[in-house]
C-alpha cells in the first residue's frame, strides 16, 4: 500500500488491459482497475468515495437527453420513419459514391446542432442509419465508424457542453467559443464527407450505389414520404431554437412525438412499445455505466496527480514552441484514450491552458483544438464511448470493425487540427467580427 503514483498507475493500466483482453465488460475493467488504484493510494476507506463519484456522474441534467434520444432513435428504427429518410437519400443522391455515409455524417451534424452530448447523436442516428446502410450493402466498418465519428460532432457544433465547461475554467466568453467553433465544425464535416466519398470512390465495393436511375415521379414520391421525419425534426429543433425547450426537454418532446407518429400510423403495438422501451433502457444503462466507470479512472489519476506530472515533465524539457505543441497534442490524444470528455476538459484545461497562453496561443483557439481532441477521444479505444454506443445500438456489428472503421476519422480530425494550426484565423476571425461591436 501507499506506493508511489507511477507504480500505482502502471499496475492499474496493466490490470485494465488484461481485463479488456480477456473480454471483461468495459465498465468492469475500468472500475476494478480504478478500485485497485484507489485502494493502493488510500486503503479501503478510499473506496468509500466510489458510490458518490458514480452517482454524481449520472445525476446530471444534460445526461437525461441520452435515454430520451435513444428512445426516439429506437422508435424511428422500428417504424419506417427512418427507412423512408434513407430511401430519399438513396433516390436523390445515387450518383454520389458513399452517399448514405455522407448523408449519415450530415444527419449527425444536424443532430449536433440540437444536442451537446456526443453519445446521444451517435445512438439516435446510428440506431436507424447503420441498419439502413447495411441493408444496402455498405461495409460494416464504414457504416459503424462514420456514425461513431460524426456523432462526436455534437461536441464541436454549438450548443456544446465541452465549450461551457472550458469557458468557465478558462474564464472565456461561451458565446465567443460557440461562434469560434462554427468554421472548424464546417471544416471537420467537409473533411469527413470528402474522406467517405473519396474512400468509396476508390473502393466502390465498400458502398454500393443503387444502379437503377430514378425518375422524377419516384424522387417526388420519396420526398413526400419523409414527412414524419420532418415533423420530428421540427418538434426537436423548432422547440430548441424558438426558445421553448432546453436540448434535454427537446429530447423528451422528440421521443413523445416519435411515439405519437408511429401510433398514428398504426405501427405501434403494445408489444412493440414494450420492446422499444426495454431496448432503449438497456442501451442507455450500458452506455451510462461505462461513462460513470470512466469517471472513477479520472478521479484516480487526478488524485495521483498524474496529469500534473506529465505536464511538468513536458514543460521542463525546454522544447521549442512547435515541438511543445506536438507534445501537448500527443498528451491530449493519450489522455483522451482513457477518459471521458468531461474529465478530459476538467483535468487538462487547468494544467495546459497556462502553458499554452505562455506559448502565445489564443485561448479561444486552444478551446476549439481541445474540443476537437475530445471528439477524437470518444472514438479512440480503450475508452471510446461512441464506439460502444454503436455496438450497443447495432449489436450485430463487431466492436473490432467499428473501431477500425472509426480510426481513419481520428486522422481526419488531426488533419483538421493541422489546418487550424496553420490558419488560426479560421477560428479567431468569426468571433472577432461578431463581437467587435
Amino acid at each position, binding site marked *: 500500500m501507499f506506493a508511489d503514483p507511477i507504480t500505482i498507475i502502471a499496475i492499474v493500466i496493466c490490470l485494465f488491459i488484461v481485463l479488456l483482453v480477456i473480454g471483461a465488460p468495459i465498465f468492469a475493467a475500468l472500475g476494478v482497475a480504478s478500485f485497485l488504484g484507489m485502494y493502493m493510494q488510500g486503503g479501503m476507506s478510499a473506496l468509500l468515495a466510489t458510490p*458518490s463519484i458514480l452517482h454524481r456522474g449520472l445525476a446530471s*441534467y444534460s445526461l437525461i437527453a441520452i435515454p430520451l434520444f435513444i428512445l426516439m432513435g429506437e422508435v424511428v428504427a422500428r417504424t419506417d420513419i427512418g427507412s423512408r429518410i434513407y430511401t430519399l437519400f438513396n433516390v436523390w443522391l445515387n450518383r454520389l459514391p458513399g452517399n448514405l455515409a455522407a448523408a449519415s455524417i450530415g444527419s449527425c451534424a444536424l443532430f449536433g446542432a440540437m444536442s451537446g452530448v456526443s453519445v446521444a447523436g451517435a445512438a439516435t442516428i446510428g440506431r436507424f442509419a447503420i441498419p439502413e446502410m447495411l441493408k444496402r450493402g455498405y461495409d460494416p466498418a464504414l457504416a459503424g465508424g462514420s456514425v461513431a465519428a460524426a456523432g462526436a460532432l455534437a461536441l464541436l457544433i454549438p*450548443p456544446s457542453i465541452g465549450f461551457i465547461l472550458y*469557458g468557465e475554467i478558462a474564464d472565456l466568453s*461561451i458565446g465567443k467559443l460557440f461562434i469560434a467553433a462554427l468554421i472548424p465544425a464546417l471544416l471537420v464535416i467537409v473533411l469527413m464527407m470528402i474522406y467517405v466519398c473519396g474512400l468509396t470512390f476508390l473502393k466502390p465495393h465498400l458502398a454500393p450505389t443503387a444502379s437503377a436511375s430514378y425518375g422524377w415521379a419516384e424522387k417526388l414520391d420519396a420526398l413526400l414520404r419523409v414527412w414524419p421525419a420532418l415533423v420530428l425534426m421540427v418538434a426537436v429543433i423548432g422547440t*430548441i431554437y*424558438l426558445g421553448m425547450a432546453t436540448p434535454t426537454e427537446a429530447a423528451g418532446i422528440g421521443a413523445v412525438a416519435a411515439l405519437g407518429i408511429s401510433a398514428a400510423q398504426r405501427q405501434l403495438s403494445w408489444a412493440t412499445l414494450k420492446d422499444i422501451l426495454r431496448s432503449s433502457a438497456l442501451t442507455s444503462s450500458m452506455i451510462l455505466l461505462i461513462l460513470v466507470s470512466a469517471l472513477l479512472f479520472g478521479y484516480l489519476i487526478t488524485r495521483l496527480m498524474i496529469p500534473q506530472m506529465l505536464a511538468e515533465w513536458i514543460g521542463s524539457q525546454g522544447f521549442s514552441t512547435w515541438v511543445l505543441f506536438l507534445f501537448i497534442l500527443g498528451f491530449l490524444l493519450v489522455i483522451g484514450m482513457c477518459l471521458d470528455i468531461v474529465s478530459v476538459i476538467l483535468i487538462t*484545461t487547468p494544467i495546459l491552458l497556462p502553458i499554452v497562453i505562455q506559448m502565445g496561443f489564443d485561448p479561444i483557439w486552444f478551446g476549439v483544438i481541445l474540443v476537437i481532441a475530445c471528439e477524437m477521444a470518444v472514438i479512440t479505444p480503450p475508452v471510446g464511448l461512441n464506439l460502444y454506443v454503436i455496438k450497443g445500438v447495432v449489436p450485430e456489428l463487431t466492436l473490432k470493425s467499428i473501431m477500425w472503421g472509426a480510426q481513419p476519422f481520428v486522422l481526419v480530425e488531426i488533419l483538421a487540427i493541422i489546418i487550424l494550426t496553420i490558419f488560426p484565423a479560421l477560428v479567431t476571425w468569426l468571433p472577432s467580427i461578431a463581437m467587435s461591436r
Partner: protein
Amino acid sequence: QETFELTFSTYLPPTYEYVWKPVEAFVKTVEDKSDGRVKIKVFHSAQLFDGYDELQALSRGDIDITNMTGTYPSGTIPALTLFTLPFVFDDVAHMERALAAGLADQGMKQELNDKHDVVILGLAPWDPYEFYSRSTPILSESDFVGKVWATSGSSDAKAIQLLGGSPTGMPSSELYLSFDRGVIDGTPRPLLTGIGRSLYEVAKHLTISNFAIDTSILAINRQRWESLPADVQQIMLDAASERDRDQIARVRSFVEEAIAKYEEAGVAVHRMDAEAVSKLRQATKAAVDEFASTVENGEKYLEIIESTRNP
C-alpha cells in the same frame, strides 16, 4: 518531526478570483508558517468533487479541507438556508457585522461539528445575489410575475414564488443556454457567477438589490483537525481569519468592477432604491417567517441580523 499532508478540494476554478486568491494565500500561509510540516495538495475546478458533494466528501474524510458554498448543503443543514433568505442582509458589511456578532454560533457550527464531523475554520461572504433578466428590467414586484426564474436553493425559490414568479431549480452550468434559448426569464445569482458563466451575453438587464448573500465556508474534517498539534491548529485558524478578511475586502472592490464590466458588455444595470427593496422585503416576509419557525434557533439568527443592521 511529524508532517501532515492535507488535501484541499473546491469546485470553484481559480478564475473566481475573490474566492480563490484568499484560499491560495491561506494554503501558502499555513505551509510557510508551519515550516513545511503541513503540506496542502490543492484540487480545484471540481476535479475531485463538485459543489453538491463537498460536505459528504469532507465528512467521510475523502478530502481534508474544502470551501463550501452555503446553498449546496442547505437542504441537509437548514440553518444554512439563512444565507439565501430574501433581503435579510443590507449589504456585505452588514453580514460581516452579523458574523462578528456570532451569527454562525447559534447552532450551525455545532451541527456541522456533531453531525457531520466538520469543523468551520472561517466564513466569508460571496458578493450578493442580484437579479439577471433576459428581456425586461426588474424594477418592482410586478416585474417578477409570470416569469420563469432559475433558482439555486429552497429559500430563493420560495421568495420567487412569493413574488409571483415561477421558480425552477437549475444548476448554474445550465444558465447560459437556458437564457440564450429563452427557457428562463431571469435568475437571482451573485455577480461572480454571472461573469464566470458569461451571463452578460445572454441577459439584457441586471438589477442591483442585494437579494441575498451566500457564504464561503472554509472547513476541515474533524478527525483530521483533532489529529493536528495545537500550534498547527492555531496557524490554521489565524490563516483562516486572514482569508475571511481578504475575501471581504476583495468582494467590496469586486462589486463595482463587476458592474462596470456588465455595463461595458452592454447589460443595462438598474439599482433598486430603498423603497422598492423594502416593498420586496415585505412581499417575501413569509419566507423569513418560515425560517424563524421551522429552523432550530431561527429567531435567534434573525435577531442577530436585526441587531447588527446599523453599524
